[in-house]
Every structure is written in structure tokens, then in C-alpha cells.
């Protein structure tokens, strides 16, 4: 398929996943804040959230006064929900011919909604209705991706985008715990699990044993929870191999090599080793590697530097003039 | 029936030729049986196109290309409305061969009873015609027998004859393509005093398996005069009475009068000649 199209599909899914992740984060942080305030806890929960999302730098004074609106509706911050959906739609628009009608209609509907006055109004009147709408959209979008899209190469790039972003979102959610400046409370831990939609899965695994080690263990290393890092990286690894046709365990490009090494790290190390190095440092390291994976996917499949280097350059027409 | 015909002729020359003068007879007639709704004849390299009617009443396109050129493409596109022209349950039987004496002097029939460039009236042909006639005394019956005789006894094969093969040769070798079959049948008819003319045109193959001959190129058949009823078309290539599946480009004494493309030029003979004819039904 066209490199640009692969790129668009990949980003479309990244942005949809991002919109969902960010929305979940706002929804949960809002509840946590309310509960904490009720208990007289004065810590600034938003600061750590903005920091984890790398949004604090672009934020201005007025934004910090209303961080929720900033995260949801700001045009200034590229990963705000509205910007994510606009960009997802923009990417979708460029590859509409590759998408099922249903997917386009869903995405376009959300786009039209977010860009209409209805969105702000719904959010002000009943914020949870607003959050549900965005999250529900993302889930429907994923369902439609699996149910109505031809599962060919394009779908694999969509899947890559989804899991790469999800790995990123999960790691950022977990990172908020390290950025609090103090030991996370029970409320903080539950909050992170909620962001990752992991409450009931966690409870099943650890019963009532709620602590940072277990939460981090679950979100990083769970084999079968679809929002854990390990799960996401394993999918990325298999998607990449499906695209290139190279058997698992081998690699034919940098993206595959890097993913393989991250996966090995998650397969063969454990939570205790990570806590020893420092959770924040480990997460930071993982995030850097994820960025590198994304970069090398782009270079391998979109830029084609190797192919083009090997093709000769067409003669350039020179204009010439004669002085008289 | 509304039919659409696309007829393409593509000459490619090994080296550039010049002073090409050409006549085209590619526009279907409008008469009692068919109405030509439109016809566009175009050529490349571009040339100024002129039209006139020839002595047989056929429309001729004329053009010349004085400049050097190494290919010549002629395309004709026509839309024709054809009418049902025969009643298959009621052929025009009952006209005796004797009665043809009455029409043989008429200017409408005279040219079609005589020798022409590719058709001879000679003793061998006459003998063959009398054999085919057997004891029939009926004009249509006899003509039909001639058509059937040729269809059954002659072998349809391409590249054994050329555009310049004479009817005598065909009657001897008993093989050829539609042009030859038509020439042979005309020769036999004329020997028996039945006015017969050569018709060039197209043919829409309505059979499911496209089993008819001559549908992929321009086709040819003959028409015979049945005294008091007019001209009837007979297609010896397909053993068929001509009906609304046929489109008439023009008619004449033989191929020479109605050749779809004729011309002269200075230069080597064509390296390749491709002809394609597509006949589509429009009112399905």
C-alpha cells in the first residue's frame, strides 16, 4: 500500500487512542480531585497529570486555571481531545477510500459534535455524558476496525498505531504516580487503574492487595490484560512481523529490532528489578524506546530512504541564460 | 433495433509515406430498412474531410494527407436504427424465374445482371448455377438454394484469398471469406438472370456463443431482386436471410464499388494493418 496511506492509518488510530486515553485521564482525575478535596487534601493533582502528558510546557496561566477545558478543548495543545479527534479525522479524510463507511461516519460524527457548540454545552451540563461519548466512540471505533475493515496491511498499520499509543498512554498514566511528589494514596492507585480500565481485572488478580508494586506489575507485565505494556508491545511485535513477513524472533528492520528488544526486556525482567532502578526512570526509558520504535516505523515504511538512495536521480533541468 | 458500430482501421508503415489520397465508404445508408441516426468518420493524422455521393448512391468520405506520416488511423462510429425487413413465415415465393425478363432492362437491375470487375458470367459458372437450381422455377427459392449451396459446400477460411480474389477463383477453390462467398453467390445468381448486388456492412451477432461468422470485421453479403417485392438480402457466410441484425454500408456491382477503405500513397506497403469492428445493441 501507499506509504503515506500507511502513515495516515497509523496516525488516525494513534490519535483516536490518544483522545480516549486523555479523556479517561480527565474523567478519573476529576473524580479523584473531588474526593480528595472533600477530604481536605490540597495537593495539585492536575499538575502531575499535565506533567505526565507533557502538556505543562505549552500551558499558559489561564489554561492552568481550568485544566480540564485545556485538556479537552484547547486548540493550543496538540494532544487535547479536540485536536486529537480533528487530526484523526484529518488523517482519515486523506485515506477515506481505505476506510469502511461506518468508521468514517462514526469519526465524522464525533468530529462534527466536538466542533459544534453542543460539545461545550454537554460538557458543562453533564460532563460524564461527554466523557462517555468520547470513550464510547473510541470503543465503537475499535470494534468497527475489527469488524468492518479488511484485515490487510492497512489494518496492521492501524493496529500498530493503536498499540503504540496505548503503550504510551498506559505508561504515562502509571508515571503520574511517580510524579506526585509523595507516596501514592489508595485513591491515586485506584485512579490509575480506572484510567486504564483495569479495576476489575486487577481485583481478580490481586484481590484486595492494593499497592504501587502490584499496580505497576500489572500495568507493565500482565500477559493478557489488553492495556498492559507487555500486551501492547507483543502486539506491535507481531504486527510488524506480519507486515514484513519475517518470522518472529528475527528482524529485517530497525523497528522490528527495537520492538524485539523491548519485548525481551518485559519478558525477562520483573517489577522488582524495575523498582530498583527507579520506576520513573524505567518508564522514561521505555517511553524513549517507544518513540524510537515509532520513528523507525516511519523511516522503514514511509520515508523509504534505502530504496530511494539506490535509485538514480533524474537529470535536473538547468536553466541557462546568455548575457548580451 | 438500435445498433452502434465502431469500426477502427489502423495502418502502420515501416517508414514514412506521403501523398495519401483516400476514399472511405463507412457511413451506413438510410433507406426503408434502416435509418442512420449519426455517423462520425475521423482520421489521424488529421485531415480535412470532404463528403460526396457516388454513382451508386453511397456516401463517400474523401481526404488527403500530403505530409509525411507513418501511421494512419481511420475510425467510424455510427448509430443505426434498423427495421424488421423480412417476414420469416412468409418469404416472397411465387415469382417465377421467367418473369424476371420484365425487369432485366430496368436501369435499377441492369448493372446487377452483368459481368463486373470481380464477377464473370461464363459457361462454368452457368453450369454450376443450373445444377444448384435443380428443378426450381422460383426466384427466391433459387437464390436461397444458391446461398445454402455455398454455405454448405464452401470452406470459410481466412488468409487463403485476398481483397482481389476473383469470383471464378472462389467457385473453383470453394473457399474464402464473406467477400468471396458473396461474390460467388452473385455470380451464380447473375448466370440464372437473377439481379444480384454486393452489399457491404455490419452484422450484429445476437447468438449467445457468438458463433456467427464475420461479426468481428466488416461483413459482406448479397441482395437479390425479387420481381414485385424488391431487394432481399441473403448471407451465404451464415446461411441466413438478412434481417434487422444487419447494417448496410452500401451496395454495388461487387467489392470494388463499395470497398470500405481505398486509397493510394507513395511509400512502402504497410507493416501492419489492424481492423476491428464492434457492433453493440443499444436498446437492450
Amino acid at each position, binding site marked *: 500500500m501507499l*506509504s503515506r496511506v500507511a502513515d495516515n492509518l497509523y496516525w488516525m488510530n494513534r490519535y483516536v487512542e490518544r483522545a480516549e486515553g486523555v479523556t479517561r485521564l480527565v474523567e478519573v482525575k476529576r473524580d479523584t480531585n473531588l474526593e480528595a478535596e472533600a477530604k481536605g487534601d490540597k495537593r495539585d493533582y492536575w499538575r502531575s497529570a499535565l506533567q505526565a502528558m507533557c502538556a505543562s510546557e505549552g500551558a499558559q496561566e489561564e489554561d492552568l486555571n481550568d485544566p480540564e477545558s485545556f485538556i479537552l478543548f484547547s486548540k493550543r495543545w496538540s494532544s487535547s481531545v479536540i485536536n486529537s479527534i480533528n487530526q484523526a479525522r484529518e488523517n482519515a479524510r*486523506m485515506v477515506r477510500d481505505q476506510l469502511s463507511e461506518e468508521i468514517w461516519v462514526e469519526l465524522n460524527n464525533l468530529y462534527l459534535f466536538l466542533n459544534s457548540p453542543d460539545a461545550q454545552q454537554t460538557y458543562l451540563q453533564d460532563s460524564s455524558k461527554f466523557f462517555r461519548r468520547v470513550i464510547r466512540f473510541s470503543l465503537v471505533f475499535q470494534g468497527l476496525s475489527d469488524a468492518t475493515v479488511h484485515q490487510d496491511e492497512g489494518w496492521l498499520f492501524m493496529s500498530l498505531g493503536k498499540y503504540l499509543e496505548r503503550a504510551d498512554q498506559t505508561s504515562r498514566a502509571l508515571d503520574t504516580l511517580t510524579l506526585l511528589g509523595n507516596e501514592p494514596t489508595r485513591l491515586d492507585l485506584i485512579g490509575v487503574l480506572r484510567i486504564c480500565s483495569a479495576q476489575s481485572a486487577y481485583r481478580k488478580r490481586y484481590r484486595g492487595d492494593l499497592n504501587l508494586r502490584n499496580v505497576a506489575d500489572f500495568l507493565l507485565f500482565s500477559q493478557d490484560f489488553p492495556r498492559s505494556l507487555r500486551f501492547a508491545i507483543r502486539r506491535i511485535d507481531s504486527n510488524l512481523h506480519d507486515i514484513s513477513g519475517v518470522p518472529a524472533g528475527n528482524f529485517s528492520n530497525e523497528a522490528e529490532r527495537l520492538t524485539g528488544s523491548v519485548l525481551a526486556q518485559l519478558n525477562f525482567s520483573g517489577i522488582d528489578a524495575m523498582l530498583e532502578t527507579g520506576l520513573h526512570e524505567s518508564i522514561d526509558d521505555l517511553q524513549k524506546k517507544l518513540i524510537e520504535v515509532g520513528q523507525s516505523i516511519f523511516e522503514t515504511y514511509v520515508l523509504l530512504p534505502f530504496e530511494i538512495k539506490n535509485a538514480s536521480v533524474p537529470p535536473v533541468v538547468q536553466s541557462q541564460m546568455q548575457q548580451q | 433495433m438500435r445498433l452502434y458500430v465502431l469500426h477502427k482501421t489502423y495502418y502502420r508503415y515501416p517508414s514514412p509515406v506521403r501523398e495519401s489520397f483516400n476514399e472511405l465508404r463507412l457511413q451506413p445508408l438510410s433507406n426503408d430498412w434502416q435509418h442512420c441516426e449519426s455517423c462520425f468518420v475521423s482520421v489521424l493524422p488529421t485531415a480535412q474531410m470532404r463528403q460526396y455521393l457516388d454513382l451508386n448512391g453511397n456516401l463517400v468520405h474523401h481526404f488527403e494527407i500530403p505530409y509525411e506520416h507513418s501511421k494512419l488511423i481511420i475510425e467510424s462510429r455510427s448509430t443505426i436504427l434498423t427495421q424488421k425487413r423480412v417476414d420469416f413465415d412468409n418469404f416472397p415465393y411465387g415469382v417465377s424465374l421467367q418473369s424476371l425478363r420484365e425487369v432485366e432492362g430496368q436501369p435499377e437491375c441492369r448493372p446487377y445482371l452483368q459481368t463486373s470487375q470481380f464477377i464473370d458470367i461464363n459457361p462454368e459458372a452457368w453450369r454450376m448455377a443450373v445444377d444448384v437450381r435443380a428443378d426450381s422455377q422460383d426466384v427466391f427459392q433459387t437464390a436461397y438454394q444458391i446461398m445454402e449451396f455455398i454455405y454448405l459446400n464452401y470452406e470459410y477460411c481466412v488468409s487463403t484469398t485476398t481483397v482481389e480474389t476473383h469470383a471464378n477463383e472462389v467457385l473453383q477453390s470453394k473457399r474464402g471469406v464473406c467477400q468471396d462467398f458473396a461474390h460467388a453467390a452473385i455470380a451464380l445468381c447473375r448466370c440464372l438472370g437473377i439481379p444480384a448486388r454486393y452489399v457491404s456492412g455490419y452484422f450484429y451477432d445476437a447468438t449467445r456463443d457468438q458463433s456467427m461468422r464475420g461479426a468481428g470485421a466488416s461483413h459482406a453479403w448479397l441482395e437479390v431482386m425479387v420481381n414485385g417485392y424488391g431487394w432481399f438480402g441473403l448471407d451465404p457466410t451464415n446461411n441466413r436471410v438478412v434481417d434487422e441484425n444487419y447494417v448496410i454500408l452500401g451496395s454495388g456491382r461487387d467489392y470494388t464499388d463499395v470497398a470500405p477503405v481505398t486509397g493510394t500513397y507513395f511509400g512502402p506497403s504497410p507493416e501492419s494493418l489492424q481492423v476491428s469492428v464492434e457492433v453493440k445493441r443499444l436498446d437492450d
Partner: protein
Amino acid sequence: MQNELFTSYETDVFFDEMFGSDGIAPLDHYRSILNRLKSLEPTQIEEKQKQADSSFLEHGVTFTVYGDDEGTERIFPFDLIPRVIPDKEWQKVEQGLRQRILALNLFLNDVYHDGKIMAEGVVPEEVVKSSAHYRQEMVGFDVPRDIFVHICGTDLIRDETGRYLVLEDNARCPSGASYLLENREIMKKTFPGTYQAMSVRSVEAYPELLLRSLEFLSPRQSQKPVCVLLTPGVYNSAYFEHTFLARQMGIEIVEGKDLIAIDGHVYMRTTHGLVQVDVIYRRLDDAFLDPLFFEEDSLLGVSGLMDAYLKGNVALANGIGTGVVDDKVTYAYVPEMIRFYLGQDPILEQVPTYLCWNDQDRDYVLNNLSELVVKSANESGGYGMLVGSASTKKEREEFAQMIQASPRDYIAQPIISLSRHPTFCENGIEGRHVDLRPFILYGEDIEIVPGGLTRVALKKGSLVVNSSQGGGSKDTWVLKD
């Protein structure tokens, strides 16, 4: 039960598509649809219109308006009352269009080769060579299959007697075919019974016919040709159409940056490396195709594309240099072209045209500005126009100056009273001016899907039907015999 929709309908002095020139009784071919409309409650009609509009918006059937930040995408307004054309009438139009595209194509072949028509003095050489879209680079080049114009949108209007006239030919990158197809889909859903009962001829073959015309051009006939649609990108006003057609044909839609020309061949960048491209259906004007040849700062094109084209390794549809026949001065000579190349009279007449380039005509134009429409020779989309009867003295003076300054760039035509068609307006059904853009495809043979896009000027009294100037569209129903 009958509603009141048509009780106060006025046809005025115009030819009315539904009521003819006398305006009393509906024409036969409109009876069924008229009865259906009359049987509807006004609320039902409103409901149907709403459904249609939201369906367009949801499916993203939109066009982009330039210089408008917020609502950059709009739906092309759609009117529910179809235009109906009886078979006989359409057949004549169709024949006329075939004849016209043949002549235009022969003309382009001639212009870029021996120039016989100019040598014979039928079309002045200076008119051709001074045309803004004449491409010197194309002289002597044999375009693939000798066809220059593969897709042509010829605009037709009807005068006060109902006679069809050719208004202009769009032989560069005509758009609108997607609306033609989408309008039909909507109408089939809105009036299924009437649609079926009237035996309307289908238009759905368009994408397939288009693809076949493109594949016919491939320089590599031995294998399945690789065809792509080259779009200026997602911000182009016709982008929806580009994706729509690409999807319908099952071909890749590419932007300039997806293509790369290497050693006289064009490749597209795919996830499996570079793939050679045979045919480019380009929706980009000549000037943007190749920055090495034309506009040096164009980011939309592909460097080296012209080189590959002139080497015959890639085909372009439409060919380069076809804009000569879009020129409104050249237009004036089309009847002569038909006579010259085909040896016959034009089947479709066209609007009499005064060429300001010609001294005598110019004097006439300058003296009669208020009774004429003055048009710039190379503008499209309804720009650069003066409608004399609706102009101010100041506007006429401005145009007079422009005409005198560059006479070659202006033509004038008598004001034609375009036919009108009943259309839903704010105050019920009123007559609005319409035109018709059929799409002609020229590949192995010439194919025209029945009908075309009927454009309607929604502003009361307006003669401008272009989407950028407040026009809308209707479905066009050509009936079977």
C-alpha cells in the same frame, strides 16, 4: 389528495423544463414525478430534504470553500426535484457530444502536429498559440492512443425555445461526476417507487467506464496496468470527488509526494517499496504537474513527471495542453472544427460569440455592453464575468477598459435566458435557472453516462450555477425509450 405546491408556480418568459415554453401543462415526461410531488404533505417533503442533506453531510459529500476558516467544508446544496430528459432528446444531445469530443480531440492532435486547420486558415494560428494553455512542449509528441481529452465535461444550456446550446467545454480537469453518482443514490432512496416506475437509465457504470478508459492508455499492456489518481491533496475543493472516484475504481489516490520519477519512469512509494505507475488520472492542472517544467515552486507535482510522460513511460489523463480548447476564443471556432475534420455540420449549436480580438466584433461589443455577457477567455467557475443587463455603468466602464487593454482575453455573448426548473426555495417551489454538465469519456470508444450533473442557480434570478457562486445541483433522469 393534492397539495398546493404548484398552484402559484410561474414560468415567466423562460423555457421551463417541466412546463415547456407555454407554461400551462406539464410535459409528458414530468407527469409521474409531478404527481408524486403533489401527493406529498409539505412536512414530508421537508423531511425528505432534511434526510438528503444529513446524508450528504454524514457521508462527507462536501466541497471546500476557499478563504473560509471555520466551515471549510460545505455540502453542495441538493434539490429534490429531478430534472427529467426524455430518451429522444437525450439521444440527440449524446450524438452532438460525441461529435464534439471527436472534433476537439482531432483539433488538439492537429494543433500539436501539422497544424492543418491553421494552415487552411480555418482557425487563426495566433488564436491557438496565444492561448494561455497552449503547451509548446507538446509539439510533435504523440500522446498515448492519440487521445488528448479522456474526460470532458461539456456545459449545456437551453434557450427560451428549449434548444440545447453548448456553453463551454471543460477539457482539463472537469469535476462533478461524484455528485452525479451520489445524487442518484440519494434520489433512489427518496423516491424509490417513482424512480422505478419511470424507468430511469442508470449512471452507475461511470467509475468502471472511467477505469477502462484509463487502463486503455497504459504503456504496459502486457500486464494489469497500475493506475493512480493524482490529487492536489485534502484541501482541494474537489477532494471528496477524488477519493470517491478512486475508491469506486479501486485505485490508489496519490499526492505528488507519493510519486517519484526516476530515470524516466514514475513510481509510487509503498510500504513494500517503489511500484511503477502506468497511468495517472491527474486532477491537477498542467502548470502544477512538474516543477521542473512548469511552476517552479509547485509542491503539488512530481519532479521529472514530464520527462517520463514525453518518453512514453507513463500516460496522463487528460493529456497536457488540452486547455487550448477550454479557451473561450477557441470555443468560437468549434463548429468550424467539426466541419473541417468530420465533414459535417454540428449537431449541437452553441452560443454566438463575439471575439474582442477581432476589430469589428470589438466595436460591436463596446457599443452594446449592456446587452451582452462579457467573459474572460480563460477563467472558469463563474469568475471574471460581466452580465451586461445586471451591471452598473462603472462596471461596464471597467470592462471596456480591460477589453481595450487586452482584447485577446475577452469574448462576449448575447444574454441567453437559461431554462428554468421548479426548485424548492424558501417560499415554496419556484423556477430557477439550470444548466447540464454531461461527462464524456474517451477511451477505446466514447462513452457518455446518460444525463449528467444538472446545476441550478439557487439565487433568485441568478444565471450563475457554479458551486462556488451559490449554485446547487439536481439529479438528472434520462428515461428509457
